[in-house]
Each structure stands twice: as structure tokens, then as C-alpha cells.
């Protein structure tokens, strides 16, 4: 009895060690460019780019199937970062995929909510808490403001108020300098 338990245990340990070691040894790294693109994307998983999430969109950009200007939540700065990474020209956001809106989070009017769980199923980041016939609420920290929960709500109890700037979430603005191109004028002058 004891020997059989010991033998099975011994086998399990050996197999675990071998498999664990080989999973490190034979680790397959994903395409690094996809990871880099994915880290620039805002991870709202909103699907406005027509791909089912940020990672698929990143894969499509890496394969040359998608353009870099299809991500409204990423905004202009996102497109600029992508253009720099991919080594292509910056182009303005494609408006057919939506426009950049100020950052907002969903808010559920808890008096009207009927607890149908439809918005929970729609939420790509699991930011809605609730159960059937129970009131739902938004976990503000997790909400990416993708608005995917708005269409399924049968009683329209979800609104998207803008996040107002206060001392909690204020950040330094990205510095923008207007650089005058003086070299072209100079070269013209010398010739």
C-alpha cells in the first residue's frame, strides 16, 4: 500500500519536473512586434477597430492587414506612437471607426437597473459586478469607457459621464513644442 503510494508520488514528481523544465526550455516566444504594438494600444478591448480586441488588432497591424489609425480610444497620441513603432507616416484617425471622446466611465442608475446581466456579458474587461435579478454596479477602476454595455441594456440605465479632472487623477499634460523649421530657409539662402 505504502510503496504504491510512494511510487505514484515519485512518478508524479519526476514527470512534473521534466515537464516543468521542458516548458521553460522549449518556451515559444510570440512575435515581439505584436507585443510591442499591443502595449501601445489602450486595452479597452472595445472592438471599434473591427477586430475582436486589442491583441487581434495588434496582430493585424503586424501582418499588414490593418491600418494604424483605427483605434479611437488610443487617440492621436496612440496613432503617433504606432506610426513611430512601425516606421510609417502619421495619419489622422479614421473617423469611420469612431471619434476620440474624453475619458469617461460607465455609470449604472441603480434605481432603474432590473438586474438582467446583459451588460455583464457585454463588458470586455469584467468591470460590471452583479447577478441575475440583483442590482449591478460598475467597478470604476476597471471600466475602460468602451461603451459596449450601452446597446444591450433594455432599460437604458447606463450613462457615460465624463471623468472630471480633480486632484486625484490630474496628470501633467504631454508637452507640445512648436518647432520652427529654420534649416530649410537657411539652405535656400546659401544656394
Amino acid at each position, binding site marked *: 500500500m505504502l510503496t*504504491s503510494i510512494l*511510487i505514484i508520488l515519485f*512518478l508524479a514528481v519526476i514527470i512534473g519536473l521534466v515537464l516543468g523544465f521542458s516548458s521553460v526550455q522549449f518556451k515559444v516566444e510570440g512575435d515581439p512586434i505584436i507585443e510591442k504594438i499591443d502595449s501601445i494600444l489602450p486595452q479597452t478591448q472595445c472592438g471599434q477597430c473591427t477586430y475582436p480586441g486589442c491583441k487581434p488588432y495588434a496582430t493585424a497591424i503586424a501582418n499588414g492587414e490593418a491600418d494604424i489609425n483605427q483605434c479611437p480610444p488610443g487617440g492621436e497620441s496612440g496613432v503617433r506612437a504606432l506610426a513611430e513603432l512601425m516606421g510609417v507616416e502619421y495619419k489622422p484617425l479614421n473617423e469611420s471607426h469612431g471619434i476620440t471622446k474624453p475619458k469617461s466611465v460607465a455609470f449604472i442608475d441603480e434605481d432603474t437597473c432590473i438586474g438582467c446581466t446583459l451588460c455583464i456579458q457585454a463588458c470586455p474587461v469584467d468591470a460590471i459586478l452583479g447577478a441575475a435579478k440583483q442590482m449591478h454596479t460598475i467597478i470604476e477602476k476597471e471600466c475602460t469607457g468602451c461603451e459596449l454595455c450601452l446597446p444591450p441594456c433594455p432599460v437604458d440605465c447606463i450613462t457615460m459621464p465624463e471623468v472630471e479632472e480633480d486632484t486625484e487623477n490630474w496628470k501633467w499634460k504631454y508637452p507640445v513644442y512648436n518647432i520652427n523649421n529654420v534649416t530649410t530657409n537657411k539652405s535656400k539662402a546659401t544656394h
Partner: protein
Amino acid sequence: MLNNYFLIIISTVLVNNIVLTKILGLCPFMGVSKKLETSISMSAATAFVLTIGSMTSWAINHYLLEPNDLVYLRTLTFIVVIAAVVQFTEMLMEKNFPVLYKMLGIFLPLITTNCAVLGIPLLNAQASYTLLESAFFGFGGALGFSFVLILFSSTRERLEGAHIPQPFKGSAIAMITAALMSLAFMGFIGLDK
């Protein structure tokens, strides 16, 4: 000595074919035989797993189970070992042959549930072969499996274009073909003395 190994191979490929005579491993035999290409790569993966699996399970049977009188644990330990070998093969393949890995897809982990893969180490243990003999037995079994699978899938590819009565189309004619092949392989029994 060499003759012995040759006999083992011939007997497992033709006379005691694992699929058509022992009726083991029918799931991949029916499932992966629609296209010749996938059936070839499936056979290669199964051959690898079977050979390594029968060697490791021989070692476990010989050094761990038999000295301790734990023969009744064979099935359990062999399943675990085979699952581990399949997992290992999967990792190895993903790293070194990503195209093959993608082509096999779900069938690669499904080798675990291929009963031929469990059946051969168990038959090995019953026949009390040596390490090399059981390796040859495993490889021969895999060869027999591949042989039949490739024959069957090429037949099925041809059957696609054949005039088959409506009620017999698809799986029905595949079953009938398999049965006829099994009958044909019974003819090899005469080879065994």
C-alpha cells in the same frame, strides 16, 4: 537476434495490426483519415509518442512495478506517463516544427486518448519483452498504424470522387471500407507460424 526484431516489426505491421486486427485506435483512424496530408503528419506524431511511450513505460514496469509486486498499477501509471510524453512532444513540436504543430492542431493532444498508444505498452508488459524489443514493438505498432491510416486516407480521398449511392455517402462508406480492409488484413494471419 536481428531476425527476432524483424519478426516483431512484421508481425505488428501486418499480422497483428493494431487497428485492423486488434481494433484499437479507431478514433484517429476514422477522424484524421479524410486528408492524406494530415494523416501522414498524424502518423509521424503517433509513431514518436508510441516509441518513446513504450520505452518509458517499459522502464517503469521493469524497475518500479514488477520488483514491488505492483503490476495492478500498470494501467494507471502508463496513462500518466503517456499523457506526459504527449505533452512533451507537443512542446517540442511547437518549438521546432511550428507548421506541423499548427497543422495537427487538436489531434496532437488527442493522441493521449488514442487507445492504441495505451494498448501497445500494456501488450508489451504482458509479453515481457526486453527494452529494445518493446521499443521495436512500439515502433512496429506505430508503423502498422501509419501504414493502415495512410492507405485508408488515400482510399477515402479517391472515394470522394466515386459514384456512391446516396445512403452510403460519407461515414457509411468509410466504415465499409475499413471493414473490407480489416478482412484483407486477416489474410496475413497465414504469415505467422
